[in-house]
């Protein structure tokens, strides 16, 4: 039987945890596209799930070589969504982590952070641009046009979004900072 659950996550580790909780209940993820998760019946805890943000799109030869390498080592890629790969391994084969030393873990976290902080920057810059245009327009006596109110409202909205994205990214930023501090002392 197929089960479909629509659920959105900002934090990929929360999504991993949820997928593993579902797996423990006997529901194994078989496909995923953005928010749409598809599950199938499976023995309790048959699979351990991990998510990875690939460096390139899954169709890129580098990504394909990497996924093939993972497959040769017992890691199955059930689905991809954008650059995100949904990976799983049989729990009978032991523990499953993709990145085990701080160098590679940091690299992965940074890749994810770069991707998600882009949204924040876009909103910040666009928001400021709109706000400044609006304020300048008021100051020069509406010489630039009659859209000032729209500009300011848009600008403020975008800045608010930028703040929201910033707050959503904060845990990851802290994680990276902590890992970097740890690296100063040990591997």
């Amino acid at each position, binding site marked *: 039987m197929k089960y479909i659950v629509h659920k959105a996550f900002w934090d990929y580790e929360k999504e991993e945890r949820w997928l593993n909780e579902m797996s423990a209940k006997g529901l194994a993820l078989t496909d995923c596209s953005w928010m749409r998760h598809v599950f199938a019946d499976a023995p309790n805890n048959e699979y351990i799930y991990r998510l990875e943000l690939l460096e390139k799109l899954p169709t890129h030869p580098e990504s394909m070589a990497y996924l093939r390498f993972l497959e040769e080592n017992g890691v199955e890629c059930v689905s991809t969504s954008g650059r995100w790969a949904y990976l799983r391994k049989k729990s009978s084969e032991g523990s499953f982590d*993709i990145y085990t030393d701080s160098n590679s873990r940091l690299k992965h976290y940074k890749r994810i952070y770069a991707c998600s902080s882009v949204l924040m920057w876009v909103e910040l810059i666009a928001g400021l641009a709109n706000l400044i245009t609006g304020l300048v327009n008021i100051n020069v006596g509406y010489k630039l046009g009659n859209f000032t109110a729209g500009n300011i409202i848009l600008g403020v909205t975008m800045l608010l979004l930028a703040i929201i994205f910033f707050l959503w990214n904060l845990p990851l930023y802290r994680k990276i900072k902590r890992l970097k501090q740890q690296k100063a002392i040990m591997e």
Partner: protein
Amino acid sequence: MKGSFFCVDNYIGLRYNNITDSDISDGDLAVEVFILPESSERGALTEAVFYILLSLYTPMHGYGIMQNVSRLSGGRVNLGAGTLYGALNTLLEKSWIHALQTDKDSRKKEYVITPLGQTAAQAEMERLKELLENARQIIGGQLQ
């Protein structure tokens, strides 16, 4: 000649940083020379990489390396597939290992250490010896 000789698996290597013509004269025995980068560039290898190099003194494929490293470290070091992939690619780029030709049917590629890689492993062993010696003197204690 300045530098130190070492012998690894019948390979005579010269660890040296600057070789000029005046160091080599007619009649000298031809030796393969590995110029290692300056010490500041060399640095310490990570545990994972060192254990991978040690594993590849015998030809091995990816999963075999993971199991071997776990065995060597008594279950302490468990390589993730992603970490292993990154490390293997870096080692290939540095020519410290190379991939063996496999038959068309075999999907698993095997890797093996190169003489250059053995040099690096040897250098790392020297570094670890130095650390261990100093630790023994200061902290004391004998390893079984």
